[in-house]
């Protein structure tokens, strides 16, 4: 029921916002949506799959570079779009195989994923010379690849997406990803994935190959991040190696944590909040931007450790609970006792 409601609201926003907002704000919301897709990918594999990936930016970057190189070589953008999802997915599959079938766990996995993204960064960063090209697309090193052709209607290379078109596509992708993951989590496969996160041994004893399920979720996360990368390349018409950098990876983790680990909405909220904040800080000169962002993060961790969404959820629940209790104050204690566990259960499945 809630999925349908989310879907409805999403569609309403999709249709309504372009009419209300001007081009500039649409473009800004587009980048928020693109980054949200990226945030959701990490939120899924971490919050539900239990995989702390320090290098989600690697798949993001691979997606954007793949799209850029492919579209500059092929012209029509349908194949590049699909490649931008496939290549990171394959890469994630190989990397995931090395990690999960090698029985690496949390911190060590974090290090390997971090290392991989740093390797990619170092490699691509040093391709500035003119000899580094794939087909007709120069890799460009630190400069990145500018002037990337935008997505076009499949089959019509000249019919490119307008800002509104890109907004529509990105928003639709976000909705599809969100709902798709939502449905996956409540399906049988999803339940095994979550169970493997909670207690891998128990899952193994029950006869499921936890490694395969982890590999599946990691690959899916990589594919979604690749999709975000492709949309990013379209939004800015450029891509550069900083996408693979430590700063970008850390940003994604921060969005998820600030928004709320263990939820799908959380990363979206966290991403939008931090992105917006970063832009605001850039438009004033009084405070150094690092100082402000750092202070906010530290305060946040100390005071709102579970993230925005679960905290808001608890706040709503607490308020709701108080209102109910006030109404039912004259009724039997059993009613109150019954309400509390029901609400706790509902909250846990958010």
């Amino acid at each position, binding site marked *: *029921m*809630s999925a349908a*409601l*989310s879907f409805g*609201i999403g569609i309403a*926003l999709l249709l309504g*916002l372009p009419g209300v*907002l*001007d*081009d*500039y*704000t649409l*473009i*800004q*919301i587009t*980048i*928020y949506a693109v980054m949200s897709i990226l945030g959701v990918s990490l939120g899924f594999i971490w919050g539900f799959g239990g995989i702390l990936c320090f290098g989600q930016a690697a798949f993001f970057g691979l997606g954007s570079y793949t799209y850029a190189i492919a579209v500059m070589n092929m012209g029509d953008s349908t194949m590049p779009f699909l490649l931008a999802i496939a290549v990171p997915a394959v890469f994630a599959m190989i990397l995931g195989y090395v990690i999960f079938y090698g029985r690496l766990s949390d911190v060590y996995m974090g290090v390997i994923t971090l290392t991989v993204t740093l390797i990619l960064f*170092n490699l691509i*960063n*040093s391709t*500035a*010379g*003119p000899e580094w090209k794939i087909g007709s697309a120069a890799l*460009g*090193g*630190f*400069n*990145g690849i*500018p*002037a990337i052709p935008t997505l076009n209607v499949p089959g019509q290379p000249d019919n490119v997406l307008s800002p509104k078109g890109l907004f529509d596509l990105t928003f639709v992708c976000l909705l599809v990803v969100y709902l798709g993951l939502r449905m996956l989590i409540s399906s049988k496969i999803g339940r095994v994935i979550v169970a493997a996160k909670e207690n891998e041994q128990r899952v193994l004893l029950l006869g499921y190959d936890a490694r395969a399920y982890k590999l599946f979720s990691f690959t899916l996360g990589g594919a979604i991040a690749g999709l975000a990368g492709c949309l990013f390349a379209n*939004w*800015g*018409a*450029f891509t*550069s190696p*900083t996408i693979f950098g430590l*700063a970008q990876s850390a940003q994604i983790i921060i969005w998820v944590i600030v928004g709320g680990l263990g939820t799908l*909405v959380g990363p*979206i*909220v966290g991403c*939008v909040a931090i992105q*917006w904040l*970063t*832009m*605001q*800080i*850039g*438009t004033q*000169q009084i405070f*150094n*931007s*690092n100082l402000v962002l750092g202070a906010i993060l530290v305060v946040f961790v100390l005071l709102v450790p579970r993230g925005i*969404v679960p905290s*808001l*959820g608890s706040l*709503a*629940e607490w308020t709701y609970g108080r209102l109910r209790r006030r109404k039912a104050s004259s009724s039997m204690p059993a009613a109150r006792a019954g309400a509390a566990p029901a609400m706790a259960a*509902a*909250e846990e499945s*958010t």
Partner: protein
Amino acid sequence: MDRRSFIKASGVTLAGAVAPMFPLAAMAADQLLVGSILDLSGGLDIYGKPMADCMTLAVEEQNAAGGLLGKQLKLASYDPQSSMQLYAQFAQQAALKDKAAVVMGGITSASREVIRPVLDRYKTLYFYNTQYEGGVCDRNTFCTGVTPGQTVAKLIPFAMNKWGKKVYVLAADYNYGQITSQWVKKFVLENGGSVASIDFFPLDVTNFGSTISKIEAAKPDMIVSALVGGSHISFYRQWAAAGMTKKIPLASTTFAGGNEHIVLSPAECDGFLVSYNYFQNLDTPENKAFKARFYKRFGNDYPNITELAMGTYQGFKLWAEGVKKAGSVDRMKVIKALESGISIDAPSGKVTLDPATHHCVLNVSIAEVKNKQLDIIKTFPQQKPSDTSAVCNLIKNPRDNQQYVIKA
């Protein structure tokens, strides 16, 4: 209503509602907005801060003189924090939301190539005021910084004359370093010299130990450095620590742009040769007057007014002249006015906009680092942007829009 969807809805609506409310450019009708996109934090802030200060001074001076076209100027300053994504976003904001009359900014060539297409697309005038590798050919863009055809062309023959013919090149690994090193090679070969090697280093490399050994093995007569940024300062440190500063001399196209000559000790960099348009020791009346105003505004102990900072100041002045001549801030009118041959008497000497290339004809000087100062040795007046004119002619091809790169 379900809690989850309530939160999602509120989240997205919040973003959508809040996004338009950027507090920045609430522009009154009698104001002209000037956008400035310069890094004030992150690795590039050593370049950005002096540039932003000169921008502030230029706008304040113009306002004190009565503004432009009877209107006051408002400076909208954005700090992209050395992030490419923010460069794109701020360019979009300046063009679409704040509707700036002109945008001045971008430090690295990489950031310029992110801003340029955005401003082209949304039809906002763009001034790129940083010295760079040359070749940008775009009617919407004016590049007021020096290019290799002006500086390197003079620096290399001078240095080779002084030190010898065998040259070892170190460059930052991105388009500026790549292209500039090709120009260095061209001028070295033209002067009968040879290039021992061209080594590239990404911007975050700090360990130059093996490079130094390689250089020693190659035994060059001189080094040409196009290294960029805070991390590359380590090279000069390690070079001096190995005792090499006294043994092999060095010329650079980028040194001192980030006040490296103040950060390093005299023992580490005395004797380096650099070539730029502006040095704060230039002995002209305009420069003296400018410095008086600058120090009054920013304090006497300001470390150094860099070439990039003066480029920003001069770029602004050129634009102001163009607006005055056009009598309006309409983009095409200002472009046509700027293409009619505008000149200003700047602190660095006379600066003229070349109509065919949208680059500048200006004075170029060679200076030597001495005791944390830059001592001017020789000045070459009114150098034309020969590298860009060889390939770009916007009068003949007004629709041209690309950056030309020298063939290796």
